[in-house]
């Protein structure tokens, strides 16, 4: 076709007549929707983040003033409540990421390896069981988790059987690292560097709090809902590796554990990287759960930047600050995404040389489900 196009005069009759016009008509709805409801709004919000708009008249009205970086300064460098709220939200989300990303990756990999066993019966059943939480809505999952983790709930009933007195999970603001330290008699210092307000107005001691018990429940919720999706990504990659290598290594007398760490895991590296970065990008966007729970419960220890951006704007009517938080988050996530794209581009040729030819077919499957996973994030 390329040759065809080259031979044919650029503008002319034949079957290409009117194609340019049709092309634009075909993409017009998608381009318009994207332009009007994505590109222009982002520019508008960027303006709001540099303005003193209070939500009353139109943000484009002449009475709205340009205030430069004031909104950004208020949440990052100016001492005060706004800075503290932002600092706490960043801390909360940081611990969320630190726990969710590795745990969901390890559990997804474990599930995939177990489900992938060739001799396993009932594969379909297990895959369904692990994937099902991923298709249900966050609202339903939060309700189920609140029910499970209430102080007289199922989780406490189970751990109570082992003589452990469970906390009131979703309302407990104790940081788990603080909790551990206090078990060893270490309590909040009243003086010294660690008690002074530090980065983003948060003291070192507060930075060290760890996720609160309430946030830990949300960490478990996240792992519960995402591990199934990532399991599918790993499963596709495992099947691309194929059973020949399994057999070869078994014949060579490698044990299952050794085989996993020295053969399977290195071959899964591209997928592992994809899962880790998708997890990282997703975990910085946690919003739905926090919104459903009201966001300010558990002493503010479940607030995240994404939620704070919403709250500052829609509840506190500090639109400029809300938009500023959203843009800081936006730039941060875009940087993560670009890093991922760049790294995956570097990796693909190497991957091709490592994975055996048979993987080429299944490889498209991996790419497909990776697209699906990204798409899922993008569509929601």
């Amino acid at each position, binding site marked *: 076709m390329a040759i065809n196009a080259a031979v044919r005069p650029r503008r002319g009759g034949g079957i290409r007549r009117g194609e340019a016009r049709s092309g634009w008509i075909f993409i017009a709805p998608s381009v318009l929707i994207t332009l009007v409801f994505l590109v222009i709004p982002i520019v508008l919000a960027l303006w709001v983040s540099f303005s003193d708009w209070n939500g009353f008249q139109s943000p484009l009205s002449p009475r709205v003033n340009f205030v430069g970086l004031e909104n950004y300064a208020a949440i990052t460098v100016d001492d005060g409540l706004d800075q503290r709220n932002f600092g706490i939200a960043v801390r909360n989300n940081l611990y969320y990421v630190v726990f969710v990303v590795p745990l969901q990756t390890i559990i997804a990999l474990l599930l995939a390896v177990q489900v992938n*066993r060739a001799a*396993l019966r009932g594969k379909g059943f297990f895959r369904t069981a692990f994937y099902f939480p991923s298709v249900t809505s*966050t609202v339903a999952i939060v309700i*189920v988790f609140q029910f499970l983790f*209430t102080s007289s709930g199922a989780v406490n009933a189970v751990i109570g059987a082992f003589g452990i007195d469970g906390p009131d999970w979703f309302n407990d603001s104790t940081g788990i690292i603080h909790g551990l330290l206090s078990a060893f008699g270490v309590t909040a210092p009243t003086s010294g560097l660690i008690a002074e307000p530090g980065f983003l107005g948060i003291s070192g001691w507060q930075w060290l709090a760890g996720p609160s018990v309430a946030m830990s429940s949300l960490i478990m919720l996240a792992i*519960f809902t995402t591990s199934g999706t990532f399991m599918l990504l790993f499963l596709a990659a495992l099947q691309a590796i194929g059973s020949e290598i399994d057999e070869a290594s078994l014949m060579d007398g490698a044990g299952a554990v050794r085989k996993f760490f020295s053969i399977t895991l290195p071959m899964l590296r591209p997928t592992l990287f994809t899962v880790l970065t998708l997890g990282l990008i997703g975990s910085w966007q946690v919003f739905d759960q926090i919104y459903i729970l009201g966001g300010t419960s558990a002493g503010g220890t479940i607030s995240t930047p994404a939620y704070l951006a919403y709250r500052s704007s829609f509840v506190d009517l500090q639109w400029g600050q809300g938009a500023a938080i959203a843009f800081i988050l*936006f730039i941060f996530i875009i940087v993560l995404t670009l890093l991922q794209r760049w790294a995956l581009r570097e990796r693909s040729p190497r991957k091709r040389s490592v994975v055996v030819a048979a993987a080429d077919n299944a490889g498209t499957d991996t790419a497909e489900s990776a697209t699906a996973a990204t798409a899922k994030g993008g569509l929601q």
Partner: protein
Amino acid sequence: MTRVTETAQLKLPNRSAPRRRKRIGARARSGLLVGYLILIGLALIYIYPFIISIAASFKTDAEATQDALSLIPQTVTYAAYERLFGDVPFPLWAGNTLMISTIVTVGRVFFDSLAGYALSRLKFRGRAFVFAAFIGILSVPGVVLLIPRFLILQQLGLYDTYGGMIIPLLSTAAGVFIMKQFFDSIPVSIGEAARIDGAGTFRTFWTIVLPMARPALVTLFILSFQGSWNELGHFIVSRQSPELNTLTTGVASLVSGQLGSGNQFPLQLAAAVLMTIPVAVLFFIFQRKIMNTTEGGEKG
């Protein structure tokens, strides 16, 4: 690995089988047993929460709170479900969600296919630029769009209308990308023949090429329906009237306890169960498609 296990099992009763193989067989089997135990344990953790939630939706408030683990309610009550269809405007929420998801799904599948087809098959100036722009837009995180979307809907006078809730969701860069990739994999000759016969661009697309893209259409259909059914963020910022509540925003308001005292677990759980059913049905219908990663890959 199957082949090894099978051969080993076949030869196990045969005394003359090489010792080495026998050992591998035994090891593989004990590994399998451990695997089963791990899997059953994990499956319980993943499924049991849903089962006791369904059970609790038929319990009284007091029993759901005090005896959360039991599977069979001491007194079976439909009070939670009756309330959902009585004091709670659950049917209204469900109706809104059903209507919005249907329009969004149909619209997305149609517009994304059109755009994907144009980007894959039709030659026009600026195509490369538009495609690059869509790729760039793929990485825009959804959660930072909340404030911008509200701003534009307000400017356009679409805030708190069905239009504002639906139109922004009608096309997604991810969907365009999926369709474009799929059209790229269909041989160009297929559309070409029809065009030579004099079929217009749209007819070629609609009657010849699109039907061949069924797998991608099904994928997009599932993702769009599930995505719009479960959408929460956009419906938080695009409306405020109670009459425009969807299942997600409506049921989320039950969580914050707007309906009086007590935790009301049965009521909330009943709402969660009901709102999950359509997505669950879709999931079970298209299960093989959704989890097709393993099909054809199974060797043994």
